């Protein structure tokens, strides 16, 4: 063994030209005919399909173009986006509280949080929205007071529940249940040694969560949250059933009048696709930010996050 290591690189018996040919550094890829064939086939089918869609008179592309940036459509789009943002923010905040409650030492908090998640995950969102919208038939008055004691304030439910508040309540409270489980999973993924370290250094629980635990949990919270956000954009189309003027509702308003059903739905489809594509880009930027400190990464990668946020804000601004 040791003798082999001290040998010269080439022994006199070696065929030097053959060894040069055998050098793997110059090896060529095998020609893969089946791969080329698959590419060609896929390309042909895609082109044919694109050609069919583009030339199909029934799609009425001129109608799509005419309505794509119409005021009523853009107003509907801004309602959809606004609802998404508001419901998502409220959902994340409540979800975080639920996750922390579910992981706390208090049996009461664990039980309440589990009960909430059980109920809101276990019933269809559409039904929840309709319930919120019709809340006044169940509870005509909303009252703040001490149970079985004096009343402090009271409102008429019909004044509180408009399509907007019903939509926000329905979407946000439902989202919170899902976000709670996503955030809990993220918090559980953090090394227990980190939590112990924050305790040993005398950090309060709140500060440990904010500074140490949540930033590390983000890496596993972001991808499913991106999923949720995209689901939420599409879920906002459900609010059209409670007469909320979102993107789908404004599209329906047009085709109920003009009967251009397919082109108007294409307007909505293209907008939904556009917005979700932008969000995908934003999501990868945020993921890059939270994986800083991973092996091989340098300080420079800490930059993309502000850009990503700015990018999303600009896009939302354009849409309105």
């Amino acid at each position, binding site marked *: 063994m040791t003798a082999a290591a001290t040998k010269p690189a080439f022994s006199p018996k070696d065929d030097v030209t053959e060894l040069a040919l055998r050098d793997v550094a110059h090896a060529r890829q095998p020609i893969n005919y089946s791969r080329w064939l698959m590419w060609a086939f896929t390309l042909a089918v895609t082109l044919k399909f694109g050609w069919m869609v583009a030339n199909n008179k029934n799609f009425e592309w001129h109608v799509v173009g005419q309505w794509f940036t119409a005021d009523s459509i853009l107003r509907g789009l801004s309602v959809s986006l606004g609802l998404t943002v508001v419901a998502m923010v409220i959902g994340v905040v409540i979800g975080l509280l639920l996750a922390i409650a579910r992981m706390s030492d208090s049996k009461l908090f664990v039980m309440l949080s589990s009960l909430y998640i059980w109920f809101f995950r276990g019933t269809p969102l559409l039904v929840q929205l309709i319930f919120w919208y019709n809340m006044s038939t169940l509870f005509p008055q909303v009252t703040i007071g001490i149970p079985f004691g004096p009343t402090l304030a009271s409102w008429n439910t019909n004044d509180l529940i408009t399509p907007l508040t019903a939509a926000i309540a329905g979407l946000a409270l439902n989202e919170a249940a899902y976000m709670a489980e996503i955030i809990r999973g993220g918090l559980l993924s953090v*090394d227990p*040694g*980190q939590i*112990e*370290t924050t*305790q*040993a*250094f*005398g*950090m*309060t*629980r709140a*500060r440990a969560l904010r*500074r*140490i635990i949540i*930033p*590390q949990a983000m890496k596993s919270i972001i991808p499913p949250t991106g999923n949720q956000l995209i689901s939420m954009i599409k879920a906002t189309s459900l609010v059209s059933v409670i007469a909320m003027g979102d993107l789908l509702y404004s599209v329906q308003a047009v085709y109920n009048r003009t009967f251009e059903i397919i082109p108007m739905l294409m307007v909505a489809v293209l907008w939904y696709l556009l917005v979700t594509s932008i969000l995908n880009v934003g999501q990868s930027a945020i993921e890059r930010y*939270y994986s*800083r*400190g*991973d*092996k091989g*990464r340098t*300080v420079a990668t800490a930059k993309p996050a502000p850009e990503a946020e700015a990018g999303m804000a600009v896009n939302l601004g354009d849409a309105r």
Partner: protein
Amino acid sequence: MNAQTISQAEPLVKARNVHKSFGDNEVLKGIDLDVMPGETVVILGPSGSGKSTFLRCINHLEAMNRGSIQVGNEQIGYELRGKHLRKLSARAIARQRRQIGMVFQQFNLYPHLTVLQNIIEAPVGIHGESRQAAEAYAMTLLQRVGLKEKADAYPRQLSGGQQQRVAIARALAIKPKLILFDEPTSALDPELVGEVLATMKDLAEQGLTMVVVTHEIGFAKEAADRVVFMDGGYIVEQGPPDEILVNPQHPRTRAFLSRVI
């Protein structure tokens, strides 16, 4: 060191009759130990002897079942009010722990923060120091552990030995009156153990109060003021390193040392 409320003759750590069980498994069966201010106490013993558990009881990371440990004039996790001992809230316990530094076997640096941010996290966030002062002190500490040029690196870009030296600097940054070392070199490759031990020896010479749980007999010999040998949940023997390590009295100490050296 600034003037302390405790007099020099009072022990900084006073453990009495400490018992701890995990389920049916009794790990500590009555530990009595004093650690004087400025003293370096090295706890040796075979795996499973309870030495790490005892160390973790000192700052209440592990709640014990019987007995008491006082650190200075505090009993971490509890408060004596009149004739009743009360358990404290998490917030109050956090406050009590602020004067105790700890170095872990797995380093436990915060991976999403740079070396410098790791060190100033507690001084700025918990002790309310200004960022500027904390950073300046952090840089002197980094110089002391020989890692000044790594201030902006992330922990995962460092070797294990470097990470542990940063962890030591992080523990020093809170200007602790006591530092606990929980097997600080056990997770390191053999060639990296030396640099960490050298840093710790340096601290021992500067008169820091340290309780060190380790397997490194060499470190005990060179840096300890007192060696405590634990086995089976008891302190079997303790004394100056020259006596315990050179001429142990108890057969179990002798058996352990002959296996390790």
